[in-house]
């Protein structure tokens, strides 16, 4: 049975690295894996997504609306934007962090204060993770993405894969310890 994990956020938040590590682990575990991402114009500041699908044999790298098993959102508003891609009984992991879109900055729109409530009203399995705040506590706001990877791994029941080795093999040595620590924190938050 093919599983679909959708990672969403704002360009520059590190969704691509998190999904890259995820796919490496899944491949080592023997799954067929496909991943799709769109980059280019939305490199910074736009809404971005990385789509990961794994199973015995995967055809399409793209997740259809209403079919993701897990939605991991690096930013609150993005979770709501992509919620229609989630299965009816799918799960959400959302970083409790706001980044203002340009229409809000310009005063043309409001960033609703009850985004999490709106998700909870319509979805039974929602985990809110303070990944940005936890990353700041670790002294490096950028490891937020690896905290969320930890939460993702736990949520999908993939803890048996040696993620810490995969992290060490794929990030710069100077940041390896910080990222491993972030991964552990992320697992403990869900």
């Amino acid at each position, binding site marked *: 049975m093919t599983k679909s994990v959708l990672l969403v956020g704002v360009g520059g938040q590190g969704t691509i690295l998190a999904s890259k590590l995820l796919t490496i682990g899944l491949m080592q575990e023997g799954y067929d894996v496909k991943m*799709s991402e769109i980059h280019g114009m939305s490199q*910074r*500041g736009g809404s971005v997504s990385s789509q990961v699908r794994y199973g015995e044999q995967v055809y399409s790298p793209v997740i259809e*609306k209403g079919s993701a098993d897990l939605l991991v959102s690096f930013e609150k*508003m993005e979770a*709501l934007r992509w919620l229609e891609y989630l299965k009816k009984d799918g799960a959400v992991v959302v970083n409790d962090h706001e980044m203002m879109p340009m229409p809000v*900055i310009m005063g043309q729109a409001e960033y609703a204060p009850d*985004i999490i409530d709106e998700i909870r009203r319509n979805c039974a399995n929602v985990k809110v993770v303070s990944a940005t705040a936890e990353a700041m506590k670790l002294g490096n706001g950028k490891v937020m993405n690896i905290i969320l990877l930890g939460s993702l791994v736990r949520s999908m029941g993939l803890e048996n894969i040696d993620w810490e080795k995969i992290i060490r093999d794929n990030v710069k040595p100077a940041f390896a310890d910080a990222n491993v620590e972030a991964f552990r924190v992320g697992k403990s938050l869900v």
Partner: protein
Amino acid sequence: MKKLMTGNEAIVQGAWEAGVMVASAYPGTPSTEVLENMTAHKEVYSEWAPNEKVAVEAAIGASVAGVRSMASMKHVGLNVAADPLFTFAYTGVNAGMVLLTADEPGMYSSQNEQDNRNYAKAAKIPMLEPSTSQEAKDFMKEAFDISEKFDVPVLVRMTTRVCHSKGIVECGSRSESGKKPYVKNAQKYVMVPAFARKRRVEVEKRMALLEEFAEKTPMNRIEDNGSRTGVIACGMAYCFAKEVFGDDVNYLKMGFTNPLPSKLMTEFLQGVDKCYVIEENDPFIEEKVKMLGFSEKCFGKNTFPAYDELTADVIRKAVFGSEFETIDYDKSKVVPRPPALCAGCPHRGLFFELGKRKNVMVTGDIGCYTLAQGAPYNSIDTTICMGASFSTGHGAQKAFDLKGEDMRVVGVLGDSTFFHTGINSLTECLYNNSRTVSIILDNRITGMTGHQENPGSGRHADLSEANIIDIETVCRALGCKNIRTINPNDLKAVKDALDWALSLDEPAVIITKYPCVLKKFSEHDKKAFPDAYKSKSVVDSEKCIGCKACLKCGCPALYLDRETGKAAIDSLQCVGCGVCEQICPKQAIGKEAR
């Protein structure tokens, strides 16, 4: 050995295994990573060319001289490179030559959705369309063999979703078979009319041989699942179709799509009662199906859209009238998040000032500055193609002048775009004495595509040191008398330069010179811009009166704090460019170390 690779990485692996020795490209989403990844292979000479035409010509030269070569580009790049391609199709190759086009169904980062398969048909060259990363690698090797076997350049057509999706690829080792002796042969390579007429006949003979090849190659295959319904699909659309239909239909999977195999298609179509032709963009295969006399059982563009990607949900809806059930929620709470100029982007200062000007038309170009078309700048009037800003601006200025209208035209383009085709456009303005203002936004790198070196950046594709072609010197050499180079983060300098240029009745050039905020600085940059991005700005909430003037510069790091009603700055994003500091009427924004 198995590796997880994007389609672009797999293209590189395939070309490398095939013994490619020269790779040239101009960056363009979604093709950029091909050349970027090629630089890791030291056996291959890899380069950024100033534009796609030049890249193809360099690859042609390498092929004729006797090494396997390739050029890669986004779909619109092939418009620029079409001139050499159409004639190279006549001469044919010496060592194999492959041209990679990356099309963009869905236009994620492009100005149009043209289907470059039409180029293969028009130029009369063979074309391969991979569906997966594994095929991208395998087809690339096939492409070089076909190129040499049939004496012809080969087009490999990728799409965004094939380029940027990852799949598992079985990797092999490199073959060094790609070298051929060079033999002077004017009848083959000098396309004067007398020789071209002879080659023209060869082109038709070759197409007939290629169609025979298309009938037999495993790149085109029938998957018989015992159904009376057929699906003909190619590229990523095949993967999407498999996702929807599984093993419930028969497939004709097309990997070699020019020329198309009439016999194989006829055999497949005769075996089914109805056939869906699932291909993104134009009805390229569908037209052949209809020519073969199967119009009645063919469901193509009458069923599926001719635009955007044909993802599984699109196919599902078109064929079965339904999609998966989705969660219902209040979508009015979702605020759009259009891409924006980064915090600290050196284009901000220019567009903040330019957006204020009345009776000014701004002709834009292809690059990050396209983002200045949106709020708060609303500063761009046209975006057409690479290098078009100065020349469309020139035509517009002449039109306003002829009509006697009080309008001035300002063209904007970036440093890489200037070298691409902007030099030609500026030449048009200078030669024909246009009173346009041509602004070159020199951020010392090719920005939008993710930081590729260019002739002005001081480094080659492999980051080795390069001769800097200085933009101001080039403009002066073209004969421009009025040139100013300014720091765009200095709003007064920007305003003064615009006032000065618009006061002239002859061509003027303004160069805004400051490195992209995301650029990894070269040694040269460190010396030239020692203070860049070393600080961050902070709001003194005692002084801030909540007037929101600073928000008008459109910086994503600035926002109005919901609780205090005063301006605030996201310290994770801010790099201290200082533009907001200059706008604040109360001097409430200051600097601190980053």
